[in-house]
Structures are given as structure tokens and as C-alpha cells.
């Protein structure tokens, strides 16, 4: 485990009552951003995280070792329904930022407008959010490619261009090396590389391997029952008392914790996803070359209905994506350098999150409408069309029962919808399980993340985003968390309050 100044050992965690001024539960992009800003403002902050504290490179990306180390439930998470969705969440310090590819977008104005209109979120105009994006981007390090796009990426772009479709290069949370094209591509950025070190440097305390089981209010303070399971000691249950709590345990973890704590109003009732179908394209020449940078292009022609992009295409991922075509797995062995994975995703499906008495993990259910599935099927057809236009000689939809696609005639024969029992979608992005806004009939928290009708309790993660972001959500999660915590600090700094706010934050909130 990482041990840095500010991290708590088991002995320290158990030695004395833990009673910080502020407890932040969850260290993903929302929790880390919140905790860092609070610590830099001089608050006494304890950040707890259910998973371990590991270095970014503790395992290669998307390897079985990474899945066991850093994915919640080793990646086995299912939203049950007629058409199931398998989803992935991080479970380590840094959360999802440690396992994603770090593709970065600001929230599209159309999405912000919808949040303002449908959920009555105050003060969420694009120009008011800009400074929060800029502040997070400066810390999180967002960069465009320093040179030509890798082949997997440029093929998608070529296909889109030849069809007259809009496409774009997406920046990443990445620091590209000076010798990026000579074997030193640079370094992916994540919370453990950026916000968490700042948090610790500012005096924040971090307790990993600590899962909040329940929150209760006693004598004007929150008391969290926390299960601490360090790798170097026995499991213990500890109590943490705090005046203020920010919950950032993720789109399933946050509503599960709140509901276990008796806070249920509009909590866990509208979990949303970006369901994704994948396809493997085989090209006549090599595109999947070791040492190349990660692909970064996305097709935006059909946003917000559905979008397309490139997936991580290393050989284990290719084998997994070809699982619906077991008789063709040999092609992965023979031709993996000519193969790459692409996806189409939409914003369909609405789910619920419910704790199950006696069990740790909540039950997640989802309902996808026939229109949702038809939209995904259209996305898959368009993706095949784009890849054929990019020169692919065959495209294998990663769905059972779908034949290889080799021509536009094959595309025309593809089904108009995905059969629910074979939809086989996955989701890397989850949101909206505790939406924010002033519409108390549908929102769990107010426009700045304070839980409606509950003192000293805030939500600070993707659960707050009222609907899917359409784009990769990490930028939105960080910026909204930054905006909300600055609002919290600003209120705390008003005359009569003893709190100062950080210098850079003062400029933003002014």
C-alpha cells in the first residue's frame, strides 16, 4: 500500500476517536476534488476510501491484476432487467480515475440547459462553470495529443470524414512525454497523481480500506460506522464523528449508503448509464501497435442520441470482445495487430439502487425501453458503416448471434433493435442516482449538493448529475464538485463564520 504523509495506518485509525471537522466518503474524482479544496481552505478533513491505496502503475491497464486490485467486485457488477447492463466502477483511492482512459470533456451546454430547465439547478450556466473547469484542468492536467493520432484513432476519424460525419480528438488527463514517439509516451493522470497528493500536502488525512456502512445524526454531528479492513491487520468497525459529511461513494455506493442510513427521498430512484455495445474491426494492415498512444477520437455526428469511439484494444480486451464469436478466437492470435475495438453508446436505461438487508452490495436494476435498444442497434449499424468506410475488411459485433459484417449489404441486414436477452451492453459511466436541483419532487440534493432537508450532509460525486452527460463525465464530476465545495466554503466564509477560503478559490467565487 502507498504510505505517504497524511495517510492513516491501522494503528492510528484505531488509537483515538476520529472526529474530524469534515468527513469525505469516497476518493474518486468528486470526493478527491472536494477533499482537496476543503483541506487547502484549512479545514480538518478526513477522506476515507473503501478500496486500497495503490500506485497508478500497480498493474497494467485492463489486465486481470488491475481488475482484481482496483475494480469494484472484480468488475462483476450487473444491473438486472430484461436487458441487463454490466457496469464497472473503481474501488481504490482515486476511484474511477485510476482505471479509466482519462478522456476529458467539459459538460455540453445542451446538457447544462436541460439540468437547469428540468431539475431547476440554479447558477449552472456555462460561463459560471468555466472557472471551475479551468481550476480542475490546471490540477488534473489535460492535454491534446502532441503529434499524429495513433492508427486505431485515425481510422475512426477517416471513416467519419469519408461519410461526412463530425468527429473530434478528445483531450486526455495525461502528461505526454517530450519523447512521446520514442518509447516514452508520458504518464496518465489520475486522482492519485494529482488531487490526492495535494490533499495530503495540505494536511488532509486519508484512510484507505475503510467502507462507510451507515450514517447517523447524534447531538448535531454525524457519526459514521466504518468497516476498516487493512491488508496488514484484522477487520474492525470504527466510529467516525464529523460536523459535516460529503458522500462521494459513487453512483451505486452513495445511494446505497444514504438509504441504509434512512435517507431515501429521491435517492437511488433514477440511476442512469451510458450503455455501450462494442465491435471488433479487422483491417488489412496493422493498426494495433505496441508503444502507440491510446486512441482518442470520437464520432459526434449523432450526439446526443448516440456517439462512437475507440476502446482499449490490447490482446486480453480483444479476446473478451470476441467472446461472442468463440470459433473466431484464433483470429485474435493470428491477427491481433490488425484488430481494434470500437464502441457505440447511448444514454438509455433508468435504474434503481437498493440495499439488501444482510448483504454488503446493493441490488441494481435497470429498465431499457424498446426505443433505447433500437437506438443502440442503430448506433451499432452506424459504427459498422463507419469502420467499413475506414477500410475494415470485417467487423465483429460483440454480441451473441450477430454475424460478422463485411459489406454495406451486411449492414443493411443487421437487426433494427437489440433483442433484450442478447443486448449484452456494458457501461463505464453511471450517474444521476441522487440528482441535484431545486425541484424537490425529483431531486435528492439542492443545486449545490446539500441533501434536501438534512443538516450537514452533502453529495459530491456523479450521483448528483441529473442526467447522463452524453460525453465522458469525469470533467463534469470534478467541475461540479469544485463548484459545490467552493459554494460551501463561500458560505462558511461569510461574516460571522470563521472559515477562510483558498486564494485561488476566492478569485473563482468572487
Amino acid at each position, binding site marked *: *500500500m*502507498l*504510505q505517504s504523509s497524511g495517510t492513516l495506518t491501522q494503528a492510528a485509525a484505531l488509537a483515538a476517536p476520529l472526529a474530524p471537522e469534515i468527513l469525505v466518503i469516497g476518493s474518486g474524482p468528486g470526493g478527491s476534488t472536494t477533499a482537496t479544496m476543503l483541506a487547502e481552505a484549512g479545514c480538518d478533513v478526513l477522506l476515507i476510501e473503501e*478500496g*486500497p491505496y*495503490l*500506485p497508478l502503475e*500497480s*498493474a*497494467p491497464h485492463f*489486465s*486481470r*491484476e488491475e*481488475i*482484481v*486490485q482496483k475494480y469494484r*467486485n*472484480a*468488475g*462483476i*457488477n*450487473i444491473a438486472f432487467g430484461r436487458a441487463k447492463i454490466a457496469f464497472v466502477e473503481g474501488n481504490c483511492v482515486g476511484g474511477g480515475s485510476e482505471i479509466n482512459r482519462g478522456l476529458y470533456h467539459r459538460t455540453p451546454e445542451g446538457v447544462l440547459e436541460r439540468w437547469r430547465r428540468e431539475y431547476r439547478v440554479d447558477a449552472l450556466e456555462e460561463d459560471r462553470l468555466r472557472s471551475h473547469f479551468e481550476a480542475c484542468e490546471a490540477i488534473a492536467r489535460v492535454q491534446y495529443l502532441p503529434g499524429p493520432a495513433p492508427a486505431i484513432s485515425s481510422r475512426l476519424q477517416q471513416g467519419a470524414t469519408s461519410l461526412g460525419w463530425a468527429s473530434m480528438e478528445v483531450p486526455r488527463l495525461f502528461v505526454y512525454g517530450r519523447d512521446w514517439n520514442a518509447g516514452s509516451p508520458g504518464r496518465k493522470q489520475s486522482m492519485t497523481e494529482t488531487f490526492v497528493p495535494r490533499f495530503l500536502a495540505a494536511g488532509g488525512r486519508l484512510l484507505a480500506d475503510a467502507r462507510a456502512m451507515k450514517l447517523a445524526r447524534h447531538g448535531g454531528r454525524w457519526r459514521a460506522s466504518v468497516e476498516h479492513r487493512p*491488508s496488514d491487520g484484522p477487520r474492525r468497525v470504527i466510529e467516525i464523528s464529523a460536523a459535516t459529511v460529503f458522500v462521494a461513494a459513487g453512483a451505486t455506493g452513495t445511494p446505497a449508503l444514504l438509504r441504509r442510513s434512512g435517507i431515501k427521498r429521491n435517492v437511488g430512484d433514477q440511476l442512469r448509464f451510458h450503455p455501450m455495445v462494442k465491435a471488433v474491426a479487422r483491417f488489412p494492415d496493422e493498426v494495433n501497435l*505496441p508503444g502507440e498512444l491510446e486512441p482518442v477520437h470520437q464520432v459526434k455526428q449523432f450526439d446526443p442520441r448516440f456517439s462512437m469511439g475507440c476502446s482499449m484494444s*490490447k*490482446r*486480453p480486451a*480483444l*479476446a*473478451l470482445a470476441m*467472446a461472442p464469436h468463440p470459433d473466431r*478466437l484464433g483470429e*485474435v*492470435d493470428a491477427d*491481433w495487430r490488425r484488430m481494434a475495438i470500437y464502441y457505440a453508446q447511448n444514454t438509455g436505461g433508468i435504474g434503481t439502487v437498493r440495499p*439488501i438487508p444482510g*448483504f*454488503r*452490495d446493493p*441490488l441494481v436494476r435497470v429498465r431499457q425501453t424498446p426505443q433505447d435498444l433500437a437506438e443502440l442497434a442503430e448506433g451499432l449499424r452506424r459504427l459498422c458503416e463507419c469502420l467499413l468506410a475506414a477500410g475494415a475488411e470485417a467487423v465483429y459485433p460483440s454480441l451473441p448471434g450477430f454475424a460478422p459484417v463485411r459489406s454495406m449489404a451486411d449492414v443493411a441486414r443487421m437487426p433494427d433493435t437489440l433483442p433484450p436477452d442478447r443486448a449484452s451492453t456494458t457501461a463505464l459511466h453511471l450517474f444521476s442516482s441522487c440528482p441535484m436541483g431545486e425541484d424537490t419532487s425529483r431531486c435528492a440534493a439542492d443545486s449545490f449538493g446539500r441533501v434536501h432537508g438534512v443538516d450537514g450532509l452533502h453529495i459530491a460525486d456523479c450521483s448528483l448529475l441529473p442526467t447522463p452527460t452524453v460525453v465522458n463525465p469525469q470533467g463534469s464530476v470534478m467541475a461540479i464538485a469544485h463548484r459545490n465545495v467552493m459554494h460551501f466554503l463561500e458560505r462558511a466564509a461569510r461574516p460571522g463564520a470563521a472559515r477562510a477560503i483558498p486564494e485561488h478559490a476566492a478569485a473563482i467565487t468572487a
Partner: protein
Amino acid sequence: MLPDFERAVEAFAQATVRERSAPRSDERDPSTSVGRFLLDVHARMPDYLRLPFRLLTLAFDAWSLPRHGKPFHRLPHELRIKHVQAWKTSRLEPRRRLIEFYETLAVFSLYSDLYGQDYGYASEQRDLDAGGGAGGTARA
């Protein structure tokens, strides 16, 4: 002679590895690491699914007893493959799902072994990772 969850999973890993003669980066038998990965995933899956999967796996192991007098994990390779195939094509969805679950993870794990060969990732590091589980690669 009795059904055994761990041995059944390890036997499944051995059967899958022998069936998929993927090119190897070295001479090590990958069945052990594949079996360990399957058991690791089972130990970490949502707790409300763990017991049903365990029971279904035990049923899978015991299914060969009436016909062959041995559980799946004691069968020779050829009979293991037939047994897996019978469950894979069963009309009962839970049987098909169980095989799909283990087979997908086993293939993924098998190809993860090729990471080092493809991308120059040190095999010693992989051994550390696999052996030490979540804390195995800790950096001081």
C-alpha cells in the same frame, strides 16, 4: 469423491486452457494463474451472487457423479470437455450462464498472460501481482 468448489473451478481452468492453445510467451502452465483468477473473482463478486454461484458450481461438479461415478474435477480431460459442452448448450439458462461466466473470464485471464509478450510488461511483476492480490504490488 465429493463435489469441491475450488477443485471444480481449477479443473474448469485446466480444461479451458487445454482447449485454447493460444501461443505462449513461455513454458509455464497458465492453468494455475487462470484458476486463481477465477477464484479471486468469485471471492470479490457481489456478496448476494456469491452463494448462488458457489451452489451452481457445486451442482456442475456433482452432475457427472451418477454417470461416471466421479465429480467433474476428477474426470479426464475429454470427459471434462463433454461435460462443459453439455452445460454450455443446455436448455436451462442458469447452466449456460455459469459456463459463459467462467469461460469468458478464463479466456480473458489466459490472454492477460500474453500482456508481457505483447507490451514488454515484466513477467516478474505479474507474478507479484497475482500472488499478492490487492496489496501485492504495494509501493512503499
